[in-house]
């Protein structure tokens, strides 16, 4: 039982990262019907930004270890948001009216570009965050020692998701975002600046991805230029499981994927765990063709 709870916490922790990345996927998809495959690489860029800031400003030792993570997360999120904004302008906006698969191919191109730009800038070798930035005691839950970093990751992800949910559903801009997601043409007629809203989404989504990247580096330690590809793919799967376009769905999908992986890795076999996760995805989609929280859309005739 102890082992089970520990594995559950392992799964929820990595699942929190998937969820944060999945939020970016799902927002962009909701508004543009675009699978932004470069999103995983924005996540990686966030992780590298965090490391660069940490090292170049010599934060460690000079600033309280409780504040460092927040500085890193906020600064990396801003940096990645700028890149996300530019990405949309350069690679996606010219393709807005084309076949939507054209934008998917462009997204793959951008993904390859980012990963290799990171390799050129930081070298293809893996980099590591210093091991002793944050040392926190374990916290006993149900009699099991849970690493507090797991709780911080989970908490941060839930907090950010809740903020985003509130923002989308209870503010004026949020309403505009929802309107654009439903019908761009009608939204335009209502006086909403669609381009501005889309740019905004490409700022929020990447910022969340960047924040997830910093969390990853801080708590797991190692980052490398190609990691965005597999993380991006998994986060995309998470978004689909939850029902793409749906914010709580992305969160749910991410956590679920993390837990499935942890249980599969812990109780079946480490070498089959990804296969089991994909298998779960397929089974879910067979029974819920639009994901767990996805709405069933009637065919428009």
């Amino acid at each position: 039982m102890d082992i089970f709870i520990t594995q559950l916490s392992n799964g929820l922790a990595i699942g929190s990262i998937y969820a944060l990345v999945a939020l970016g996927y799902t927002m962009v998809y909701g508004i543009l019907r675009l699978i932004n495959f470069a999103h995983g690489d924005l996540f990686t860029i966030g992780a590298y930004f965090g490391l660069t800031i940490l090292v170049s400003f010599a934060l460690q030792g000079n600033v309280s270890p409780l504040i460092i993570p927040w500085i890193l997360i906020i600064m990396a999120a801003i940096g990645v948001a700028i890149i996300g904004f530019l990405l949309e302008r350069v690679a996606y906006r010219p393709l807005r009216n084309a076949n939507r698969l054209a934008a998917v191919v462009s997204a793959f191109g951008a993904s390859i570009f980012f990963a290799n730009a990171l390799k050129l800038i930081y070298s293809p070798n893996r980099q590591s965050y210093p091991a002793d930035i944050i040392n926190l005691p374990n916290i006993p839950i149900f009699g099991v020692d849970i690493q507090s970093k797991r709780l911080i990751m989970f908490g941060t992800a839930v907090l950010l998701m809740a903020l985003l949910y509130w923002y989308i559903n209870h503010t004026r801009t949020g309403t505009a975002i929802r309107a654009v997601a439903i019908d761009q043409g009608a939204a335009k007629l209502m006086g909403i600046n669609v381009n501005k809203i889309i740019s905004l989404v490409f700022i929020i989504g990447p910022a969340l991805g960047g924040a997830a990247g910093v969390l990853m580096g801080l708590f797991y330690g190692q980052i490398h230029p190609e990691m965005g590809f597999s993380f991006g793919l998994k986060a995309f799967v998470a978004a689909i499981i939850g029902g793409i376009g749906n914010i709580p769905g992305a969160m749910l999908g991410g956590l679920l994927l993390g837990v499935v992986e942890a249980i599969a890795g812990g109780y079946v076999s480490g070498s089959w765990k990804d296969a089991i996760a994909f298998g779960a995805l397929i089974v879910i989609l067979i029974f819920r063709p639009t994901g767990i929280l996805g709405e069933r859309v009637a065919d428009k005739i």
Partner: protein
Amino acid sequence: MEALKQTRHIGFWTGIVFFALMAVLAIALESSSGGNTWLRTLNNIGIFTALALSLNIILGQTGLFNMGHIAFFALGAYVTAVLNSVLGWPIIYTLPFAACITALFAFVVALPVIHLRGDYLLVVTIGISEILRIAFVNDIFGLTQGPNGITGIQRIELFGYRFMSQFAQFYLIWGFVAITACLFYFLEHSRFGRALNYIKYDEVAASGNGVNIVRYKLIAFALGAFWAGMVGTIYAPFIRTISPGLFEFKESVLLFAIVILAGGGNIVGIVLASFLLVGMRDVLTMFGDWSMLLFGLMMVVIMIIRPQGIMKPRRRQYNAGHLVGKFPSGIGKKAGLSAGNQAEVVE
């Protein structure tokens, strides 16, 4: 009909001239000192062209978002490798088995998921190809020899001639591409091909007109996989060591990009796009560390320059001229306005 025939001839003759030029190019490369490398690049392009043509049936013609096509290719290659390397069959006998097993696999896995829409199907196909790759890594049924893969695959032998050099394989691979292009060209213009196109442009209308959507989609899937399995048979003796590392998700992406860049369904476009993307990937390696960066950049730039693909998807064309005046109102009037022009299906 006249117009239809003419365009058909143009496509056909372009093909003949193209393959003839390729044959000459191969002779030229063979006789030059550094030519072998280029021949290999061309052979790589050929493999991908044939693969992209097989994906085209699924993605380009029917509009099914298959982003796991590499799995079918991998399965074909593995079937051939196992039959040849373990059981000692000559490569050429493994061809029908590779194709049929792959088609059967595609049919079985597609059956429960074929009703999924667009992007959901896309992620499921990614999942299927990853599961298959992981199964190969984990030495499933003790057949695939794990991450090392299967070595010692023989070369193809036909009528006592062994296709060893890049030069010999060039004719094998591109001959296969030519046959593929030709067959798929006729397929595209057949009743079957038209039904697939119908599904792509308007599933509801197609179904309303008596096209059995599920059946056609499944056949398209199985047919594309059948062909990809055969390409796998040709690839295995070409590369001689088959390992799961060769069939990563990135290769599926490249295939997907080729078909989209081609302009959805156009055979000439697919050949061009294969040259552009696969060729570029090979040629750009001369830039060392910068090569993949440039490759990614190029993908973005090409898509922006040609958002509709290299070749604009050519719609089926009908000459409506003879309809002028045949109808009292409505259609006749409209047709009259556009007499001589062709009606276009809008995507």
